[in-house]
């Protein structure tokens, strides 16, 4: 159902996704490390299915309260981006990664992710 909020949490990590007029909003808070990788992967799968079902043009991922993300969880984001790239052009949607300048790892990590698909992924500070 389009209006239902998606959510996931484990240890010091939580994530939510919901629809707004501007597109799909996704927010992650806390720490995404090896303990939550599977939870994150499942959550991103749900987000992708929601985005496809609702034919959104854009999903915004708010990471401004995400203190840390490990490489395995970054890989889950790479999988999500890859899933979008594999779609026919008409079904693809953009991802905006909303970062905090105060969380220093984000600049380099999100830059690397955006290089996977510069036509689809933008980083907003």
């Amino acid at each position, binding site marked *: 159902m389009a209006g239902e909020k998606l959510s996931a949490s484990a240890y010091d990590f939580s994530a939510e996704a919901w629809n707004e007029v501007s597109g799909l909003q996704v927010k992650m808070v806390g720490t995404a490390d090896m303990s939550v990788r599977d939870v994150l992967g499942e959550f991103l799968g749900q987000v992708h299915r929601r985005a496809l079902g609702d034919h959104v043009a854009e999903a915004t991922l708010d990471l401004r309260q995400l203190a840390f993300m490990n490489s395995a969880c970054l*890989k889950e984001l790479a999988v999500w981006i890859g899933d979008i790239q594999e779609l026919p052009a008409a079904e693809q949607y953009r991802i905006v990664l909303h970062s905090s300048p105060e969380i220093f790892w984000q600049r380099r990590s999100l830059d690397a992710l955006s290089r996977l698909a510069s036509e689809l992924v933008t980083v907003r500070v």
Partner: protein
Amino acid sequence: MSSTVCGLRLQLRLDADPVLVSVTRRFVEEALKRFVSDRDLVSRVAMTAHELLENAAKYARDRNAELTVTLDTSGGKGVVTLRLSNDTTPAHIDRLRQIFSELDACRDPLSLYVELMRRNARRPDVSGLGLARILAEGEMTLGLSVDGRTATIVARTSVGT
């Protein structure tokens, strides 16, 4: 020739339990902040400690590992060194050697990191990004030494460059 270490020296012998990795990363980060004002450097060191410890949590025999973090400011220029040692399996040592072979040959760490993200995205069994992340995002030099079944990974970066 021995060098005098001025500044920080942490030597942590630990059970590399997955749920303790982030706790240890935060400890390293807080300790280094007492000595270094460069928050970007502190973040890079903390990320490196995290990725090294997760490797130990996944591959160390009995999850026993030793992490050493030093800030050496002798000689006028600072260097941060992280050293992670743990016993592991011959299969993992072989895998580490393969990874280091690829890392040592690479001229553009960021391009390799992005390529590995793309390549490993369809391999659910491995992340395979941790060491490439240390090289690219951490701006560290990396080295591997093996003594019997003990693998030691050393990551190093300059302070104030």
